[in-house]
């Protein structure tokens, strides 16, 4: 039993990070029908903000605060310079953001080099409870992720911003004829989605190796989580993230990482094919 608990905690923390990444993707996809292939790179840049902060001797918390601000601002630039011009061509957004992801990746290679970096843990200790011991930072990471996910849900279900956002998702034309500036909603949702990615990258930076190629490893599972869970209700991301992240991690422990990845992708593809509206329902892609 006591061997099982760390595994469950590891799996849970992976799922939570995946859900954070997927939430940002889903806000952008659900709201604008835009597939942001550069989302993984925004996550990666969030992690690199931590690397830069460490190199500059800034405290850990400063990096955590700076990452979503910098990445969110980058999101604002991307929306204004790129996405805004192709809202009405959803398939082209895939290609354009793909080009963006290549450019961002290379920009990071040019600035930080192609090698991987590590970020020091801000807290070193472990939580000891009898025979049970678990790194403290991972617990903090989980708590922070839960707070963030909860906060995002709260924003979209309990606030005026959320009401407006859901209205724009459901009936953009009707929302506009009620005086709601849909373009402005798109813009800020995009910024929120990218800032979330940046923050997720920053939070997870101390427990992974930070390198320019790390984005893809989160982008594809993130998307599969959305499609598996269903792109309609927000809760779909939780279910999708649990399925994709859970299966992936458990199989990686019990069989091998390669078998796990192959199995989880195939399971996800099967679910998406057999239930295109996702486990939790919702609309299909445009």
């Amino acid at each position, binding site marked *: 039993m006591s061997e099982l608990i760390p595994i469950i905690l590891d799996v849970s923390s992976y799922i939570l990070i995946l859900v954070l990444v997927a939430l940002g993707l889903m806000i952008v996809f659900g709201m604008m029908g835009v597939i942001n292939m550069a989302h993984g790179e925004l996550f990666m840049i969030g992690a690199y903000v931590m690397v830069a902060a460490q190199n500059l001797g800034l405290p850990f918390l400063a990096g955590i605060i700076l990452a979503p601000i910098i990445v969110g601002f980058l999101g604002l630039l991307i929306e204004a310079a790129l996405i805004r011009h192709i809202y009405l061509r959803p398939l082209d957004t895939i290609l354009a953001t793909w080009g963006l992801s290549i450019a961002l990746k290379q920009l990071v290679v040019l600035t930080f080099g192609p090698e991987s970096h590590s970020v020091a843990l801000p807290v070193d200790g472990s939580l000891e409870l009898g025979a049970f011991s678990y790194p403290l930072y991972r617990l903090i990471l989980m708590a922070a992720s839960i707070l963030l996910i909860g906060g995002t849900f709260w924003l979209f279900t309990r606030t005026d911003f959320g009401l407006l956002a859901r209205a724009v998702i459901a009936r953009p034309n009707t929302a506009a004829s009620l*005086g709601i500036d849909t373009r402005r909603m798109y813009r800020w949702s995009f910024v929120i989605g990218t800032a979330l990615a940046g923050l997720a990258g920053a939070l997870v930076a101390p427990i992974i190796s930070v390198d320019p190629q790390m984005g893809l490893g989160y982008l594809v599972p993130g998307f599969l989580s959305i499609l598996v869970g269903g792109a309609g209700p927000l809760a779909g991301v939780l279910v999708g993230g649990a399925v994709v992240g859970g299966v992936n991690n458990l199989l990686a422990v019990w069989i091998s990482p390669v078998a796990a990845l192959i199995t989880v992708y195939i399971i996800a593809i099967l679910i998406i094919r057999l239930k295109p509206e996702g486990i939790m329902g919702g609309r299909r892609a445009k």
Partner: protein
Amino acid sequence: MLEIENLAAGYGEALVLRDFSCRIAPGKVTALMGRNGMGKTTLMKTIMGLIRVKSGRIMFDGTAIEKLPTHHISRIGMGYVPQGREIFADFTVAENLRLSLLGHEGGNVLPIEQIYDWFPILKERAEQRAGTFSGGQQQILAIARALIGGPKMLLLDEPTEGIQPSIVHDIGAQLSRIARETGLSILIVEQNVDMVRTLADEVLFMENGAIQERCDIETLRQDDSLLHRYLSV
């Protein structure tokens, strides 16, 4: 109030309206009648900025609106009740109304009490999901949602479509009262002759993307040959 000159608009390459012109007087209820496919809904959507104008101009209360985005047109006082009502079914009644308030923030919005006073059913069922409403109740909600933004003019697209006759009359009477009390201008697209007779001051007949005839409601009450000419299939 609303002046449209030489308007051309449509979907993609196909123009539904060509060289359309008309004037809607302030403070009156104007009904737009005509058979299906004559461009009435296209006209409404074009006024709201939901269909791009190819050429021509639309002046609303002294402002050229043909190039403005939809939310801007709404904020300068054009209320719109679309065909099929398009209420937000997953939201509560109160949330549907709140949306419009948020959209017109800082503008000339009406107090919610005023809306509840006009349509008491909305107050009773404020916390109910709008999707559970009957067609007539949804229509009332859609009208209230447009009115709460304090519009100078209201566009109504087939408000009686698929609604019980008893409620049709109630809605007509209530709208007529509101228009008289507040001086609101209304442009209504309608096939239901009773509704037009209850509500309208003036009637325009549309065919092939243009106004063919206009008359006041008294003329129409005495002589329904125009109705036969423009509505019978």
